[in-house]
């Protein structure tokens, strides 16, 4: 027997969340495989307000209750996010799983989360009394440790309206589909007037949370594309200092080597573009 609530509105959901300890249930693709179905669930699939994709002056706003498929098929979704979603699990799971659930699960292996980190997304969190906006990197405090109060819900993901237009995405899974990332990489950049004007990279599945190294990315910003070779070595050396993966199913050594290979390729791609 599964216990739970299936509210129709966000207000109703937040009231329940205030009164009772309930697990938010988006698509349930992680929760359904859990053997201990003893908790009480807050089913979010009926809340239309959480399933919208819209933009305002500052942000592209993705409702946390949107399924991967809905995000992937939406005209406003950035191409890098579409590509990352296309490699998540398999269509049946993408039709159910939500982006809010991907974040709330708290894993550094979550494929949409990697892109949200690379895009410096913010999260709109709400409780019954109000809301707060938190940058995603601050939201993740560690593995399965989130800056989310017991009575709060993740309501929206806010992506900047202006993001770099060029990107590289690479997911390494143990197979072509239904594979948890063993390592994932997102890199975005812009070129204006022959110079790199923006650069943002993120690595998934190498540490307790997604790894961002903005201070290293900064090395490339301002560099003329034609002179990338002259800073590449310094850039990779700095990245080598900054990226220190942990051991897991695959070794830290493998992870680090691949991160640096992919960054090397990232710079080479910038040169060609």
């Amino acid at each position, binding site marked *: 027997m599964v216990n739970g609530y299936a509210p129709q509105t966000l207000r109703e959901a937040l009231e329940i969340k205030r009164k009772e300890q309930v697990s938010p249930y988006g698509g349930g693709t992680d929760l359904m495989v859990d053997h201990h179905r003893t908790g009480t669930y807050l089913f979010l699939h009926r809340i239309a307000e959480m399933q919208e994709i819209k933009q305002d002056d500052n942000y592209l706003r993705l409702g946390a209750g949107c399924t991967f498929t809905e995000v992937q098929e939406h005209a406003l979704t950035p191409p890098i996010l579409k590509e990352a979603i296309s490699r998540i699990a398999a269509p049946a799971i993408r039709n159910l799983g939500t982006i809010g659930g991907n974040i709330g699960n708290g894993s550094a292996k979550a494929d949409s989360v990697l892109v949200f980190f690379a895009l410096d997304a913010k999260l709109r969190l709400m409780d019954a009394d109000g809301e707060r906006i938190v940058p995603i990197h601050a939201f993740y405090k560690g593995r399965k440790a989130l800056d989310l109060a017991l009575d709060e819900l993740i309501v929206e993901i806010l992506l900047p309206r202006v993001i770099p237009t060029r990107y590289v995405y690479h997911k390494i899974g143990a197979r072509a589909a*239904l594979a948890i990332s063993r*390592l994932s990489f997102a890199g975005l950049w812009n070129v204006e007037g022959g110079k790199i004007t923006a650069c943002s990279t993120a690595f998934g599945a190498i540490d307790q949370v997604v790894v961002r190294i903005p201070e290293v990315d900064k090395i490339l910003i301002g560099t003329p594309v034609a002179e990338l070779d002259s800073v590449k070595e310094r850039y990779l050396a700095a990245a080598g200092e900054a990226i220190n993966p942990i051991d897991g199913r695959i070794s830290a050594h*493998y992870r680090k080597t691949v991160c640096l290979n992919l960054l090397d390729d990232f710079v080479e791609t910038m040169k060609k573009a």
Partner: protein
Amino acid sequence: MAEISGSVVKVDHGPKVRGEARFVADYPMEGILYGKTLRSDRARAKIQAINVPELPMGYVVADARDVPGKNGVLIIGDDTPVFAAETVEFVGDPIAMVAGPDEAEVERILREIEVEYEDLEPVLDMRKSEKVFYEYGYEKGEVDKAFAEADKVYEEILQTGHQEHGYLETQGITVVPLAGGKVKVHGSIQCPYYVRKALVLALGIEPGDIQVIQDVTGGGFGGKEDYPSMIGARVAVTALKAGKPVRVVYDRREDMATTSKRHPTYSVYKAAVKDGKVTAMDIDLLYNAGAYTTISMVVLQRGTICSNGVYNIPHMRAHGRSVKTNSVPNGAFRGFGAPQVFFAVEMFMAHIAKDLGVDPVAFKEAHFVKKGDKTSTNGIFHHGVPLPQMNEKLLTASDYWAKREAYASQPKGRYQRGIGMSYSFHGGGFTGTGERDIIKAVAALQKYPDGKVEILTSGTEMGQGLFTTFAKIVAKELDCPIDQIIVKLPDTDRVPDSGPTVASRSIMVVGELLRRAAAKIKAEWKDGEAQRVEERFQQPEWQIPFNYDTFQGDAYPTFSWGAHCVEIEVDTYTGEQKVIGAWACYDVGTPIDTTVVIGQMEGGFLQGIGYAHMEQMNYDKKGRIRSNSYSDYTMPTAADVPKMEMHLCVEEYPEGPFGAKGAGELPLVGVPGAYVNALEQAIDKDFCHIPVTMEDTLTHWREGGQA
């Protein structure tokens, strides 16, 4: 292609696609108790005490003390306990079974049982094991002399890992106690008579008091050959104690962590080369049997016999040992000891060729056995060996030579490609004189007055198509439509023992008995009357009897053949490997149904690709399997299936029905050799183990491979 090879709708197709087929987990649970297994969490320990909490009414716990017969599951030996009594020998070793009407309550009781252990030091590394379960050896020619006269001597260590069957339906059995001490067993079973034999010993009752029926079964691959005997015995003991039917269905994690797998191996190959050819081999094989002997004896026999692959090695010595470790007992798995040695010999031959500066395909072809040659055990290849034609077909289909040459000089970049080939055989039926002396298969046909004919064998349908191919053989011989033939799930109260559904023997051996029975019934046909005909196995007169002490003679009456080609692309930045081309040519004699055969060939090929690089299962230091789910133990998905081009070559077997021979295991056996050889070319490095992971690939590339 023979007329019988045309494809029909499978006879079990309708009920399966309509959802009517009833698997063991589909039976309503009214009046049936849920059973769950209490397992050891230690790799090796003495059991000091089992403290069971107070049980609610209607719940029961059975352990070793409740086994009415011998506390041993009879497989080949009976050292596998029904329930561990004094010691536990691996993580997952069953100690007791809890049964009751509410599943959650059963789980609660299971959690609250405390087992007190005295830990003992486990042996997890097969090379450190001092307990040899089985040991075999044989020699032909003058091995030492050939090594002494060699131009060059080679030596290599080759290793293979575990492989999990990954059948879609997990293990499951229901046992129903009947009046008068009889029991009825039904479930996901490959070999109903094996289960009956095991229960005779464990329950101490007569075979006639045990009825075993196969439920619709969702895949086996060997995993349901010996294992159902173990679950069957445990559930039967519990059901008898409870006096009620008990059902056990494993969940996926329990199944993956505790049921049998393919034996990992460690092999040392030595070869003498004279004038560019291998004149002698000296082979030493080590198979990790796990905690109990189960079926390791026969797995080791097949591996030892096949250790020289498809090559005519005039002087050879092979020695094999199967040793105990404190890990899950390894058992039967498609290929049955052969995939390990075919990987080893294929890589070894390729590496020798490379050292000699010859292409591996040309080198291997120069050593192919042919009709009339002696086998490793001084038997004879009695029938045609179509390897040269198969090889030719694949070289053309894959454009091997052009690609091999192009990839040899490809510029070093992020993506590197390679192409490789491998060859294998599979001997159909039980090893040696097993069919004659151990199985003694009997098959029958029952004709009813309305003219319908029922097939009576213990052959099981597991998705491999046996009911369809059996029905086709009988219909063809009777010259009647296939819907006049009845095939039902075997029930030991109704069918004779035609042997287990294993060893690629069903079509070749049992199918031929059915064909002969059909011919007889046709000759004696009387309209409107019930008639029954039985056929018994006879060993072909030309077969040289196999001596199990000296390992001399025909180990198999005939062989099916395989040739494989794999083309891959490696991302040298990440170690990712992608199959970009896959070709195979198989000879299984006359295909009884081409669609069924091609399905088997494609499935086996893909299972071989998974075995080569993707499927990895290891123990931690405490002997626990961590890869106990489909997300951790990665098998290929539909998205990983390359375009596979399967060809068939037909070398008819005169003793098989319409010229058919064994097909089930063949397609997996030789695949890893082609895969790894392609990988070797792509990154210019020799590999001596499988699975070759992306991490292995990358490590090499960073540490010297890159120009």
